[in-house]
């Protein structure tokens, strides 16, 4: 037992060094995402209220908070799975309030899911090709009659899919059925599929859920690598504090649908309000006792 413990890889606490230019905190200049006073009610329940956030063009942003704080709800608002009750979302300066989910995707937001939602009965390559759906340039008739353009575009889609799979060294799995992949590979495939839609903002919903420490460390490297490679913004929900503190440049903390803190990892780590939200208030009696003892 003790031996096994020793062999376990140690999770990295130091931030992963980005090889690209350190992204300027351009949130103030021209953010890719702006949320203004965003809010949603479900019946009488206010799930998210007065949510304000700016995410820079190549920023890795973290969204954290206790369970039920409204983190996934915000992702659902950003992707228009839910329509906001109040407030506005601007993607690259453009208002998304009249857009549907697929239009928001075309405008540049892609996401993964907390519980993996791949197309399990399709092959790995086909999953990626579905991400490429809007970038395959033939219409219905081209497809029905198999015009020359169809063959050209399909070959092109195959190449693009393979190139994307190469990021995670998954090209040898291209013909495997997505549902039959091991858990970690399914998570990676979901990220590849989201990247295939050519996003400018990638939303990752608990990407490290169910991963062991060494897989998490690899994931951290990969998220930074994706950002550097594609020069996109990444926003992630995560409970693994090592990951969040390790790679996020800006962190937003939610509790009960309200933003309780925003800032750099160091600012968040030492913020008493955040500590309170996670660990609860210090007992008053205890405080008194401590004071007396002291």
């Amino acid at each position, binding site marked *: 037992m003790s031996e096994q413990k020793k062999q376990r890889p140690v999770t990295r606490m130091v931030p992963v060094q980005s090889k690209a230019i350190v992204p300027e905190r351009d949130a103030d200049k021209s953010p890719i995402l702006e949320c203004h006073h965003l809010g949603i009610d479900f019946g009488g329940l206010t799930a998210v209220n007065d949510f304000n956030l700016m995410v820079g063009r190549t920023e890795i942003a973290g969204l954290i908070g206790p369970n039920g704080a409204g983190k996934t709800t915000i992702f659902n608002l950003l992707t228009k799975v839910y329509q906001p009750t109040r407030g506005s979302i601007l993607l690259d300066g453009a208002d998304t309030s009249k857009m549907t989910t697929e239009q928001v995707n075309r405008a540049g937001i*892609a996401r993964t899911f907390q519980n993996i*939602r791949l197309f399990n009965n399709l092959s790995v390559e086909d999953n990626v090709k*579905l991400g490429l759906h809007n970038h395959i340039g033939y219409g219905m008739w081209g497809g029905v009659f198999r015009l020359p353009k169809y063959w050209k575009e399909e070959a092109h889609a195959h190449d693009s899919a393979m190139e994307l799979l190469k990021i995670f060294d998954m090209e040898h799995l291209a013909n495997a059925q997505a549902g039959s992949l091991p858990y970690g590979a399914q998570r990676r495939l979901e990220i590849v599929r989201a990247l295939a839609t050519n996003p400018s903002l990638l939303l990752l919903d608990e990407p490290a859920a169910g991963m062991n420490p060494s897989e998490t460390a690899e994931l951290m490297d990969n998220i930074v690598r994706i950002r550097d490679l594609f020069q996109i913004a990444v926003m992630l929900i995560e409970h693994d504090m090592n990951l969040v503190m390790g790679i996020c440049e800006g962190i937003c903390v939610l509790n009960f649908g309200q933003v309780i803190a925003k800032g750099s990892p160091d600012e968040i780590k030492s913020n008493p309000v955040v500590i309170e939200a996670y660990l609860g208030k210090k007992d008053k009696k205890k405080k008194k006792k401590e004071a007396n003892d002291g």
Partner: protein
Amino acid sequence: MSFLDSLISGISLGSVYAIIALGYTMVYGIAKMLNFAHGDVIMVGAYICFFAATRFNLPPLVGILVAVLLCTVLGITIEKLAYAPLRSAPSLAVLITAIGVSYFLQNAALLLWSPNPKVFPNFFLTHAADGTEQTGLELGSLRVSYVTLVTIVVCVVIMAVLTFFINNGKLGKAMRAVSEDKDAARLMGINVNTTISVTFAIGSGLAAIAGVLYMSAYPTLVPTTGSMPGIKAFTAAVFGGIGSIPGAFLGGLLLGVIEIFAKAYISTQLSDAVVFAVLIIVLLVKPTGLLGKQIREKV
């Protein structure tokens, strides 16, 4: 009727069921709903083809094409008006709406075209040298009508083309993606509404073809003509595993063959009872149908 005769006519009837069942199974697979109005689209297709041939004297092939086109439009219209507003409603509401649409189509046909039976013309004829009409081939003691041959060939061609279409190309893949997970498909930028409309269009177009083939074999056309083959084809789709395209093909063929054999060897009146008894037994042994996939819920 010899064994071979029965087998051939069974396969032919089964082919019609299979084509109709494809419509049920595709719509179920993608929109997760049972479109009970599907059988009545068959009837509308048959009427359109009938009038195109008798009143407007169009050549049969043009008549069939017109029927396919109009039924495609009808299918899309039904989906947009009746089903699309209920996309997030409970499935029971959609099911009842589908039954409503079915009655609407039947009664509209009753008003428009009267309840008097119409005799569907036989398109599948050749003229012998002496001018007499030939409706089939004589192969020794075996007599195979052209309708039977055409039906089987058309069914196999449709199956092959459809399977190829679903498995290749971006629209086919989009359809499979939508059938698995609508929300995830939306987040891939796939237009789910268009994809569902295309599915209805294909299903309804096939229904028109099935209508013409069915009417050529059983030429009495009344406004309720579509309901019986509709229900049988639905049974065939469940028999083969609803949602599965090869399942619809297999289920349709088996249902047709069982029905004709039951008619030939057991009793004409009891044939339907035999068919449904077999369905019940199959579902008891294999609840998802012959080729249906077991859905494993993750706990």
